[in-house]
Structure formats: C-alpha cells, structure tokens
C-alpha cells in the first residue's frame, strides 16, 4: 500500500517536473512566436493548392503585375501568383532541412561520443579531419560537391547533413569530455563496464540535452544553407516554388523596379529561420537553467 502510493507520488512528481519545464518554455514569448510561424508554414505546405488563391504552377496571368487586390503579392515573370507560390514554397525546404539536420546531428553525435570518450590517437586523427572540414565554409564545400554530384533532394540532404557532422561532433565532443571527467565514469570503469556501455548508457543520456539544442540550431542552419544553395542554383531545382530558388530566378529584375517576386520569398525565408532560432534560443535557455 505504502509502496504503491510512493510510486504514484514519484511518477506524478516526475510528470510535474516535466510539466513545469514545459510551462517555462511556453512562458517564453520567443518560443511561442517561433512555434506559431513555423506551424503556419507547415500548414501551408501540407494543405498546398487546396488553400492557395491561385494554382501556383499552371495559372499564367500577365507577367510582373505589381501587387494589387487580385494578386496581393503581384505576379512573377511568367505571370504566376507570387502569394500562392510563397505559401507553398516551404514544401521542399521543410523536408530537406530537417532530414539534413537529423542526419548531421545523428552522425555528429556518434562521432563526438567516440572522440570525446576515447581521446588519444582516435581523437587526434578524427580531430584533424574535422578541423580541415571546419576550415572551409559549409556553403563553399556544399557548392563544390553538389556541382559534381548533381542536385537532387537526396543529394542535398546527404551533402548538408555530412557537412554538419563535424560541427556537431565538435560540440558533442566537448560535452562528452566534460562528462567523462566526472567520477561516475570512473565508478563504472571500476566495476568493469565496457567503453561502449559507458558511452551509450552512462554518458549519452547526460549529453542528450545539448544534442537536442544542437538539433534545433542545426535545423535553423539547414534552412539557411539550403536556401542559400537554392539561390546559388545548386539546391532545390525548378519548377519548385522554393523561396531561395524564386529569389534566384527573379533577383535580376529588382533593378528594374520589379521587386515583389524577390522580396516576398526572401521575407518568407527570413521568417522561417528567425522562427527556428527563436525556438532554439528558448530551448537553450531552459536547458541551461
């Protein structure tokens, strides 16, 4: 009887702790705003043509109509409705960016765990390669690789994910190195645990917090990177209404005053990355509290 009450108490205590940290998160205005913006783009991307005012692909009006009551954001060079295209422009990037972030964070965490735990030769060798990768801007290496491999969705995910790996690995490695100096690791060694067990069962749960934060941060950078690559012509390919791609197709027309097919997708990119960074910032401050 007493034992059951206690168990219930503890369960409810833990649930309370979880609820409390969630409540703290939801008290942060940045987190709510970020979540709302992201949710909006996700809904638009999923609902797609069901809610856009015009067919974003095949409804050709007069080209480069300025914003007007019928076309609130105007039309692009081919006469397609800019608003409709911006609304569903998140489709590709919202698939590519999270996948790339997940790939990079998973691979980077594994690598970081191994580097941080085993130090010595393994760490030295891998660190060298990681350093070499880190000495180049991600965009530049991604550009090179995508030009060689050709840009398909899968390749963009792979390339961005792999290029994020060393960055994540460095962060996780630092966290693991802090952990492995704690005495519970020594205690585990003293009772004869294997390195694999210590990494997976003892250390990993304690570095999960920073890894989750890293995941949101990487998600933001993935959108940043994919948008830039699309703008450079090696990311998401036509006829996608992707924002970065739209800017790339239309930016030369800005000089002649036709700014709307460029500005609105650019604003959409900005809103999306800012939203994710607001979420990441809130998570970070909650997990460090």
């Amino acid at each position, binding site marked *: 009887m007493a034992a059951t009450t206690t*168990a219930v108490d503890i369960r409810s205590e833990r649930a309370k702790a979880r609820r409390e940290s969630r409540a703290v998160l939801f008290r942060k205005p940045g987190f709510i705003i970020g979540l709302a913006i992201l949710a909006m783009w996700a809904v638009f991307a999923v609902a797609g043509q069901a809610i856009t005012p015009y067919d974003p692909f095949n409804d050709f009006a007069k080209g480069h109509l300025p914003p007007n009551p019928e076309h609130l954001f105007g039309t692009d060079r081919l006469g397609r409705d800019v608003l409709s295209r911006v609304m569903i422009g998140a489709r590709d990037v919202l698939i590519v960016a999270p996948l790339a972030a997940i790939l990079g964070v998973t691979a980077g965490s594994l690598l970081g765990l191994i580097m941080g735990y085993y130090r010595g030769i393994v760490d030295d060798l891998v660190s060298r390669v990681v350093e070499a990768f880190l000495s180049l801007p991600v965009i530049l290496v991604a550009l090179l690789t995508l030009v060689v491999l050709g840009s398909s969705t899968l390749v963009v995910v792979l390339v961005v994910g792999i290029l994020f790996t060393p960055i994540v690995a460095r962060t996780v490695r630092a966290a693991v190195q802090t952990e492995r100096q704690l*005495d519970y690791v*020594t*205690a585990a060694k*003293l*009772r004869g645990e294997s390195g694999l067990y210590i990494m997976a069962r003892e250390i990993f749960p*304690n570095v999960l917090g920073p890894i989750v934060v890293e995941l949101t941060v990487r998600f933001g950078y993935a959108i940043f990177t994919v948008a830039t690559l699309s703008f450079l012509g090696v990311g998401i390919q036509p006829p996608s209404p992707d924002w970065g791609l739209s800017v790339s197709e239309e930016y030369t027309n800005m000089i002649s005053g036709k700014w709307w097919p460029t500005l609105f997708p650019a604003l959409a990119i900005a809103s999306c990355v800012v939203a994710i960074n607001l979420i990441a910032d809130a998570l970070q401050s909650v997990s460090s509290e």
Partner: protein
Amino acid sequence: MTAVPVRDAAPPAPSSAAALKVEDLELAYLVRGIPRPVLRGVSFEIRPGESYGLVGESGCGKSTTAYAAVRYLPRNARITGGRILVNGDDIVKKSGDELRRFRMHHASMVYQDPGAALNPTTKIGPQVIEAFTVLGQQGDQAEASALAALRRVQIADPERVLTRYPHQLSGGMQQRVVIAMALASDPQLLVLDEPTTGLDATVEASVLDLVRGLISETSSAVLLIAHNLGVIRTMCDRVGVMYAGKIVEEGDAARVFERPRHPYSVGLLQALPRHGVRKSQRPLATIPGTLPQIGTPLPTCVYVDRCPLATDLCREVVPPVVEVGPGQWSRCHHVDRIGEIQAPQPGTGQAVTAHDELTLEMANVSKTFRSSGHDVPALVGVDLQMFDGETLGLVGESGSGKSTLARTILGIEGPDAGSQITLGDHDLGAVATQRPSRDKRQIQMVFQNPDSALNRGWSVRNILGRSVSKLTGLRGKEVDARVDRLAESLRLTQRHLDLKPRQLSGGLKQRVAIARAFAGDPRIVVADEPTSALDVSVQAAILNVLAELQAESRTSYLLISHDLGVVRYLADRIAVMYLGRIQEVADAEKIFQGPNHPYTEALLSAVPSIDGEERTRIRLDGEVPSPANPPSGCVFHTRCPRRIDGLCEVTEPPLAEVEPGHLMKCHIPLEELRRLQAERKPLVVEEQTVGPIDAV
C-alpha cells in the same frame, strides 16, 4: 496552534560605539519573481579592533550576511528590512556613489579562492598600486605604498612580485596580495569570507598567523566567515551561531565553543570529531532532519523541527533572547534543559576490527606522469601495507601523491614498471581493465563529491542494481533483494531508491555512493575525502555509517582526508606523505602523541584547533617544491626546521622502523626527536560534557 508573531527584542548589545552594527536585517532572494527570505532578522555588532565570527552550516545565511555588510549582493537579492550601520551610517540607504566611497575608504573584503580575486590579465603591480591611486595617491607614492603593503603581508622580494601575473604566484602568495589590497585603505570594516579555504594546512596556518598579527595592529572590525570552526576559534573574539537566517546564539568564542547554550550550537559542536574522540569510543552525535528549504516560513523558533528539546511552546511563541553568561545569549525557551542534549555515551563505539592479516601490500610502487616532455614523479618507491579490517589514514598536503596512490591501488592509473601491488595471495593487474572481475569486486571507491560520482540520469535503484549485478553476477530477484539490503544498511528507504540523485540531499547522495562501493562486499574501500563536501552534521552521520559498516563487514578502508579530526576518528593507522614519498607510518594514536617526523609535526601543529589548546606552531618556510624537480637528499630538507646541514640535503634517509610498528624517514634519531618535541603539549584533551548553566 497559532503562532504568535512577536517581533523579538533586540539582543543585549555590548556597549560602546560599534564599527559595524547590523539591526534586524531581513533579506530575500527573488526566485522566479517570488521573494524567498534568507535572512530573518539578523542583529549583531562588532566593535573597533574586535573580530567576530559567524558559524553555521551551508545555507544558513552567513555569507549573505557578510556580503550584505558591504552591500555586494547578487542582483536578485532584496533587503526587505533592517539597518546596517557602519560607524553610525546606514549603508542600506546609500546611493551608488556614496556606496563606492564607503567601499573605497571604510570597508574591504578578502575571499575564498584568491586566484579568482585577482585580474588574470593584469600584473600584480598595477592591481596593488590601483588600491592606493584610487585613494588619491600619485604615481611614485602609490608604488612605494604598494611595496610597503606587500612587505606588510610578509611577501619576500615585493619588487619582483609586482611584475608577476597572478597565475605565476602560489595560492598563499595570491591571498597575501589580496589581503594587502584589502588593508590599503585601513578600513573600519574588514570582511573575511573563507579566507583560507582551499589552501593547504601549512599555508593556511601561516596566512592565519599573518591575518591575526595584522588585525591586532589595526582598529578594524573584522567579520570572519569560515566553515572550519577551528579557524573561527583561533581567530575570533566573539562568535554568532547562525541557523536558517537567524543568529541563534552569540557570545565569547571560547565560551560558546566550550559551553554552547542553544540546542543547535550544541548539536553542531557535538557532531564534530573533536577532543581526540575515536570510532572505538563512541559514535558521533548527529542532528536529525535536514535544513529547511530556502524560503520556508519559520514564524517562531527556526530550529524547532530538528530540536530535541522542542515543545508546543516553541511552535507557538517566538523564543526570547536569554542571557546565559557574561556577554553570551541564546534564543531558546529551554536554555535550562540544554544539559539534556548528550553526545552518545563512551563505550558505545564500534568494536576494533583491525587484524594483522595482510590484505594489500604495495612494494616499491612508483608512478611517473609525463607532462610536456618532462617526467613528473607523483609516487616514488612507496612501500605500504594494509591489514584486514583496518582503516589506514593517508594525510599530506595537495601534491603529496595521496590521490595518485589511491588511484594506483584502484587501477585507474597504472604504476611504473617494477612496482608491485599484492592483494591477498596474488599480484594485481596494473590497471583495472586488466584485472579479473574478482579483483575489481574486492577494491571499490567512495568519491569526494557525490554529485560527480552518481550518474544524474539514473535512479538510485538503477545505480545500485547495476553495481550489484556487475560485481556479484547476481540476476533478477536476487539483485533486488541485495539492493534492498544495501539500502537498509545505509538507512535509505524504498522511496529514496526511486529518486534521482538531484532529488536527494548531500548526505543521502553520499550514502548511495557508499552503498554502491559496498555492492560486491569489497575487501578494500578507498575513500577520498568522503566528507569534505558535506556539512558538519551530515559528516558525523557518514562517519558513523562508515564505522558501522566496517564493524559489520571487516572491510579495510584507505581514508584520504585533509581533516585530521576525521582521520583521527576513523583511522587505525596513519601514513604521512610528502612529494610522493611516505614519510611516516604508525598507529593513529602514536602519530598524534609523537614523537613525529618533522613534516608530520608541522602538519599537526598547523591545524587550527577548535578545542582552544595552545600550541607552538611549527612554521614551514618556502613553498612546496615542484615534483618535477624534487630537492636532493631528503625531499623535505628545503622546508625542514630541524634539518641537519651537510647531511639532509645530501643523503636520502631510508623509511626505517624506529620503534615497533612506527616507520619514519628521517636522519634524526627517535630519541632526539622526542627530546626536541617534548615541549609540545599532548593533543589529547579530556572530553567535557555540557553541564548546567553556572552563571546567568
């Protein structure tokens, strides 16, 4: 049961003008916008030239009081009531610029961790000189003052020190520099917050000597915070005992330490291993319960929930301030019943379990680290034995190799080739991974800091269960049964088992860590400073538990501690280390009686005593030499006050048995040492019991 909110009368005030007068100070910390009271009406005063100590366990508010006295408080602190008068001036009301002038001219502070108190990117010179230029002195004059200030704190070669960066000085030197700066303005109020915590015993002793000398020269009022009651006793004229944000007893230091008259003071002092008490005599007294959470409303007596004398009266009426002796008062309804609180009776201690059956033998164990191309020997030719069921205490200052020795036994560090460690009948593998699980099971460890030693992601049950199954090979229900038994013997409840470490108090966490070490019935448990992260009352309970477990299981302990009271309580034999070498080994009582190796002698005399006995301090000159470059001959000769010139710096003495069971590494014959150390008073003081009040 309604509490009667009575504003307590101000305690009887010592007459004459006070340099610092704190009146009914109330202070709260804002935690997520909600004020949590930390100080609940603190009142005391310090006269010019007087030194006043605040004692109490962590969280009692003593540091907050000290920082409030100079109004250097965290951003979320709010003074919600009371006054702080320095020379009659209320500093609570001061504006920013007035406060700056007040700190410039009238108040100074010295803190723990002198390394952090100095700007790491600026040389000592500008930092010390600045303390004088800010007072209006000009270039050359300020520099001359700085040099004089460094000389005043007995820094040799101050010109050279001025050109150094802080990290190039030792901890003791850094603290001297901080003290020199603090005294620059000849302040009326000098606040010392744990000024010697973290320094080695011999360095601590010399810094304390220095501070005592300096404050006797000035007319500063000194407020001293220290968790080490010995430091308070040797430094302070009067003390205040704090609990949960209130001073519960105050009086002349010697009187309070010898005749405490508040149940909390009594509990605190009885919990200390003092007066040479040993585990074979009696358990240490403990205080039941835990400190109230910060911000708990405590409308009447703050100590009521843990007090053995508490009655309904204590819950209903605020206790009065009762004068219990000349200048001594206590905030208690029941000062007349104080004598009822008794330490456990002599004769209730644990049976002696030490036997002469050898458990572990170390022969010629050395460990050399390599650091940027240099060999740094941490252990040099250590020969040491541990016997069945005994506690071997290991003492020595930081860098003496105590921890390395422990880590070598555990197999965390592999010793150099040629070293031999024998467990029972067979040699041990150099590192733990090479040892069969049978051997791993035999040697386990209790760490200093339970927060670091317990995986914060695991429940207590998982922590213990994994150790049990890994070390004993048990499975399923048998593991659960053993975990339950372990928990029971450490007085952990089923409820505790389901919690995560952060949900437990420090004492409970250390119990979990001890339970884990005992999971596989080890023959040897290494305990590296097992109580130094804990408060006094918690320490007592942990020491009792360790003694009990040893009596039950006949496990041998290797106990590392800088606290000689703790070592004396628990250890059967003591080994003294210096620069990676064993200097002396003997039975614990032998070590405390002497005659000793000159290093042991200095170490023992450096400890500030809470029992107030007068001792001749053996001062050690110079710094501990670098292990990378040890002195020739006897490694202690550079600091040894009894060095024989022409011999000690040339020849290293052997570790020889100078009398049965007493090994020493010294050229001076035992009888000569006995004669030289004869004037030293014996360290055994008869234990006193608390008597009735004799003077009111």
